[in-house]
């Protein structure tokens, strides 16, 4: 006799349902976490050697192994490509990637398969030939092209003299020369070591990126304040009052959310063609354009949030306050706003985070001029364009850090309110 006949009702297990939901939600969470971790891991946090030109010639792997001539006793940096396992020299072999000292006049690449193109990289560590000091500016000559650019930073360390140690900004370069300023009273050094500071230090030292951090922080804060200033009244009116054309206004308020961000910037640019000259001169391609472009998008999100916040506060509170002697204004400030604090904080955080990430409209409406309208996303873009992936990642990390700090502050303040 089976269950049906016996009349016992059974319900299927909840497990497949819960596991299914867990997998769907979990995979999204996993992507979020691994995305951030990938950024953190990809970036090299240690100083890198200053390297000369590539020594591996293009070609294919042959049976006897590709030979690269080296100088005995010199340091080289080897990076295995997808067709190499490592390299071999008299002393032994190096697998993968790393710095090594050559022990003879040649090394042999170990290929994973014959006939495949050579993809490895072998570059000598640059050595100093000589150096000179004039007016506290050191000019170093290297034995190989160093590949460093004007405005980049170099980390100098010396064991036996003062005035050299530290991270220096390069003020002049040629292929095998570079100059930087020294501390007052620096003497000729005995032995020097040069290395490239890690990308995070490079980014934080760079004048352009420092400017963009500053502009980002200031513009996002201004945007947040303006957004809240506008979002509170709009959110309140939309939540409490019924009037003709409300549906139309509701739709209009959502336009910045649904419109492609680039179009927002373009529309602003066109709009300012019709503005008086003094106004468009003061705004377009200047820092106010950055704030306005951020504001247009961020404010729409703040309005949404504030409206939901006010929707969740029943009208009863105001009604009671009105009977107790308030007018609408007093009821709003004394009874409604204290309850809307959490929503206000959420709206502010959201607006701030949106503003921080805003890129398209700023590029179109404010341009990407270094030290003028460059904000962090612009920096990331410019770094990428210049082929400096590491620089871009460093800027991304700065943005992640800023966003995390703001979220933590907002959450802590929010918690305080709840547990008070």
């Amino acid at each position: 006799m089976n269950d049906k006949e016996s009349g016992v009702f059974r319900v299927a297990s909840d497990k497949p349902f819960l596991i299914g939901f867990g997998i769907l939600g979990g995979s999204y969470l996993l992507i979020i976490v691994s995305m951030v971790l990938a950024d953190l891991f990809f970036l090299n946090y240690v100083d890198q050697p200053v390297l000369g030109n590539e020594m591996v010639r293009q070609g294919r792997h042959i049976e006897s192994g590709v030979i690269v001539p080296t100088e005995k006793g010199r340091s080289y940096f080897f990076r295995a490509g997808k067709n190499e396992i490592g390299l071999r020299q008299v002393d032994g072999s190096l697998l993968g990637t790393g710095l090594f000292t050559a022990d003879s006049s040649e090394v042999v690449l170990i290929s994973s398969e014959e006939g495949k193109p050579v993809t490895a990289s072998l570059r000598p560590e640059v050595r100093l030939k000589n150096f000179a000091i004039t007016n506290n500016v050191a000019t170093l000559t290297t034995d190989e092209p160093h590949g460093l650019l004007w405005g980049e930073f170099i980390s100098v360390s010396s064991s036996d003299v003062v005035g050299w140690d530290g991270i220096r900004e390069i003020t002049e370069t040629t292929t095998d020369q570079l100059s930087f300023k020294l501390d007052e009273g620096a003497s000729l050094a005995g032995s020097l070591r040069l290395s490239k500071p890690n990308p995070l230090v490079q980014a934080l030292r760079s004048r352009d990126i420092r400017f963009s951090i500053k502009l980002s922080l200031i513009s996002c804060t201004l945007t947040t304040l303006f957004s809240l200033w506008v979002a509170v009244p709009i959110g309140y009116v939309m939540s409490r009052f019924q009037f003709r054309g409300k549906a139309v206004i509701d739709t209009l308020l959502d336009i910045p959310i649904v419109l492609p961000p680039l179009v927002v910037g373009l529309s602003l640019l066109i709009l300012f063609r019709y503005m008086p000259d003094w106004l468009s001169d003061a705004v377009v391609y200047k820092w106010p354009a950055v704030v306005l472009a951020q504001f247009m998008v961020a404010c729409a999100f703040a309005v949404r949030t504030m409206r939901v916040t006010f929707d969740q506060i029943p009208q009863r509170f105001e009604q009671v306050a009105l009977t107790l002697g308030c007018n609408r204004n007093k009821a709003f400030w004394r009874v409604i706003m204290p309850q809307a604090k959490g929503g206000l904080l959420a709206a502010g955080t959201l607006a701030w985070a949106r503003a921080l990430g805003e890129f398209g409209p700023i590029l179109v409406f404010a341009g990407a001029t270094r030290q003028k309208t460059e904000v962090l996303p612009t920096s990331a873009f410019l770094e990428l364009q210049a082929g400096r992936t590491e620089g871009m990642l460093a800027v991304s990390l700065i943005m992640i850090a800023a966003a995390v700090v703001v979220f933590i502050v907002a959450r802590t303040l929010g918690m305080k309110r709840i547990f008070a």
Partner: protein
Amino acid sequence: MIRLADITIKQGDFELSGIELELSSGEYGVLMGRSGCGKTTLLEAICGLRKIDQGKIILGDRDVTNLPPAERGVGYVPQDRALFPTQPVREQLAFALVLRSLGQSEISRRVEELADLLGLGELLDRLPDKLSGGEAQRVALGRALAHKPSVLCLDEPLSALDEELHDEMCQLLEHVNGQTGVTVLHITHSPSEAKRLAGCHYHLVDGKVHHDV
């Protein structure tokens, strides 16, 4: 006193018309009616929270038809009590007094008085979410009485309380009515509750108010 003369309220398909009601000063009035018959609407109209299309509302000796809620001198206790969640009991009781710019000592004296009347002494520093149903009801009552209104409007004040508290609350309401001389309009959908309360009984049926004698 409360006098409603020929009140009409239209709201979409719903309509109350020709409402007449009279309570003399210090009287305890109970307005009964089924759920959804417009009791709360009428109460809101008296408090000035809802526009009326026609008629006159007289509270005390004033025609308040066109006055804002703040100037009508009513105390309003809504069904859900609507205690302000961010304010401790003391601030709720003082709310109306602060708005009237009374002195600090005057305010604390009045708060003590209300706490005595309603037995709130222990609760003055609590937030509303730490109050039980009966306590919250007493606080809401105290808040509505603070500015010594001539009229107290109670919207189903007993409906959210358990049976045991009913009697206690009824006695308290009658006590408040007797002590302060405030005119009370108490609305309820429960005939048994109405029976328990003394005073003047009205019935709201099909948009009309009937006086039960």
